[in-house]
């Protein structure tokens, strides 16, 4: 008896939830920062309810609105453990889009922007992608993390929708021909780091501490270890940790110390790296530290003595303290808008939007084109353009989707990143 009532109520709430959900999908562009007038939202809602077909929706909506707009979507983790990266991408892309819109848009057309949270979960990322498709997305900046990018790229390849991932660094991200990368691929970083250490004679005995449960970290480690065989240094210890036990590194450090390592290679993110630096200092072990772009941000960790990071070397495409004009103006604009120092992910996303702008201008893709037509045009244009961005100069792309740009080696000197060369 009671159960029947409960199930009846639950069923009723389910139906209402589903109905309200269908109605909501049009007006869910809460993240829209530009041109999204109220009329447009209403129109979108109407078209969404009678023809939720994504392609049709995207064709009709701009035509009825105040002007033709490009619809760019972005995906990243805005909640959960990896939220730092997702929020950086959200803000970085947002900043670039605002700038472009203020400067008159792309070929006179404004950009609409919508960011969706994926909680750093492959399944949720596909849900976010589908939400954006309902919104009428034509171009995707995302996903932020490698695993999510791979999952989403299978969907976007199916729909032939142009995808540019700012920071999905795994090679599997760009397996489909509609996906391009802004950041380096993992092999690129691992091989680059090994070659740098080898050719500059930084050390002869190297230890590695990496996160075996993280795609980014284990991906770099594998390629680093592979390339190390060809280099004049030796890996004396390689110790892993996992996401479940990443607070105490004394065992790994002790092993590196016992093996007599002069340099510790850290292909990991900065939170764990700051702990490693602190713990190495506590046990009186002072090797050199060398990292990849994940270490960017280490100077902003709370309660971390930045003096310990002195002399840490890292290969990163972006440093917030760099002295060039473009970086300076980006950092100050970002700080003014979001009250936070941008990291490499924000810079990647910022560049991604400008890369899309350059590709659109090159190809002449119009905002009224369907997502699939835009994708075909942009795919061709990507191999022709060369973009100067925050994360690299004269970036160019192969048809495969990987970026060509020179890695920059930075060293932390006096609490600042400075370019080694």
């Amino acid at each position, binding site marked *: 008896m*009671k159960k029947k009532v409960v199930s009846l109520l*639950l069923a009723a709430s389910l139906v209402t*939830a589903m109905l309200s959900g269908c109605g909501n999908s049009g007006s869910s562009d809460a993240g829209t920062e530009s041109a999204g007038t109220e009329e447009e939202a209403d129109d979108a809602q109407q078209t969404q309810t009678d023809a939720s077909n994504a392609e049709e929706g995207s064709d009709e909506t701009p035509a009825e609105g105040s002007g033709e707009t490009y619809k760019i979507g972005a995906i990243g983790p*805005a909640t959960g453990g990896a939220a730092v990266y997702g929020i950086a991408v959200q803000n970085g892309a947002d900043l670039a889009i605002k700038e472009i819109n203020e400067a008159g848009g792309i070929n006179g057309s404004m950009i609409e922007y919508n960011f969706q949270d994926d909680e750093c979960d492959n399944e949720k990322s596909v849900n976010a992608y589908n939400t954006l498709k309902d919104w009428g997305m034509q171009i995707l900046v995302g996903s932020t993390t490698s695993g999510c990018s791979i999952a989403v790229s299978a969907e976007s390849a199916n729909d032939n929708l142009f995808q540019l991932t700012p920071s999905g660094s795994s090679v599997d991200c760009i397996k489909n021909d509609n996906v391009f990368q802004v950041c380096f691929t993992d092999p690129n970083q691992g091989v680059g780091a090994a070659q740098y250490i080898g050719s500059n004679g930084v050390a002869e005995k190297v230890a590695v501490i990496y996160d075996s449960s993280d795609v980014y970290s284990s991906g770099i480690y594998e390629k680093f270890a592979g390339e190390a065989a060809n280099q004049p240094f030796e890996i004396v210890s390689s110790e892993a940790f*996992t996401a479940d036990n990443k607070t105490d590194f004394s065992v790994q450090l002790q092993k590196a110390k016992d093996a007599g390592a002069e340099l510790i290679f850290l292909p990991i993110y900065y939170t764990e790296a700051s702990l490693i630096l602190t713990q190495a200092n506590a046990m009186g072990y002072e090797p050199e530290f060398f990292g990849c772009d994940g270490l960017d941000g280490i100077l902003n960790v709370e309660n971390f003595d930045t003096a310990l990071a002195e002399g840490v070397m890292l290969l990163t495409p972006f440093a917030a303290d760099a002295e060039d004009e473009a970086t300076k103006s980006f950092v100050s604009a970002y700080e003014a808008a979001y009250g936070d120092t941008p990291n490499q992910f924000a810079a990647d996303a910022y560049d991604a939007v400008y890369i899309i702008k350059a590709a659109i201008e090159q190809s002449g893709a119009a905002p009224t084109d369907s997502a699939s037509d835009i994708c075909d045009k942009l795919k061709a244009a990507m191999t022709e353009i060369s973009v100067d961005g925050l994360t690299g100069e004269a970036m160019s792309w192969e048809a495969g989707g990987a970026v060509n740009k020179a890695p920059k080696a930075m060293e932390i000197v006096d609490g600042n990143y400075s370019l080694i060369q």
Partner: protein
Amino acid sequence: MKGLKLNKNVKDNLITYGIVIIAYVIMQIMINTGHISSLLQGLLVPLCVYVILAVSLNLTVGILGELSLGHAGFMCVGAFAGAFFSRYMEDVIEVSLLRFVIAIIIGAISAGIVGFLIGMPVLRLRGDYLAIVTLAFGEIIKNIINVLYVGKDSSGIHFSMKDSMSLGLTEDGDVIINGAQGITGTPKDATFTIGIVLIIITLVVVLNLIHSRDGRAIMSIRDNLIAAESIGINITKYKLMAFSISAALAGMAGVLYSHNLSSLMATPKNFGYNMSIMILVFVVLGGIGNIRGSIISAVILTLLPELLRGLSNYRMLIYSVILIVMMLFNWSPKLINLRKKYSLRRLFKKTGEVR
């Protein structure tokens, strides 16, 4: 009296099957007429996955009366076993449906075997040991998969627990399980129709088990272990039976999950402790031992965070608040009284069988 009771069971089961089939028909009509958002369409297979998980966990928690906190671990075993098979046989078996069906069977059997092995020592004990052991199992399986490297080349399968380089693959080799990077490029064989068929299979298995002789034995263990033992019921056997079936069904759900996404990784997010708790929440909210409730709550709680996307950053907060409110609404004694007082049946003047 006995015949009446049987009828009630049959009627009850038919309602459950009916809900699933009607939902399927409605969704198919909406898909074919284009009245469905891509979001909802993309959610259909995950919904099937979570319904199967909730129903199968209800078998352990509700019918057997043991607490299991490692259901996501069994899902993980099934997902990786099934996805590995599909990737390995991708070029050999060209018919995707046949390959997928075999993958499902393999996933279910491997998860069932793992469940059996875990249950064998633990289910002999009395108390909350199953919860402790399954909790540990869920964490262990995730970590094992994260260090597992398996590849294939012309000379066969290579296996390592160090890294993908020590597999020693030849030029044409293909790394299938690449440690933390998991399995990528699983063929997308899962469809809504197959998902619904699997739900129906799960329901047939679970509902028939509950209403069989074995099911009554299992429930008698739950209700009074000493009494059940005294009339000669083989406790360990029936406990193991229910637990292994539950694990096998979770493995089946895992195969469906892995064939819906092109990249499969064992992260704390999808196969961790939180996921096990999430499935337990489906069961508790739907009513422990109530199969239909599990289905409905799994659907609602999976849809809810997606439907709240309009609230952007506040969505997970609101989701948790709604969860608490729903829990209170369902199980708080005061509210149950209140609901009885103002129930729909009262309003329609159908008093008489108010419990």
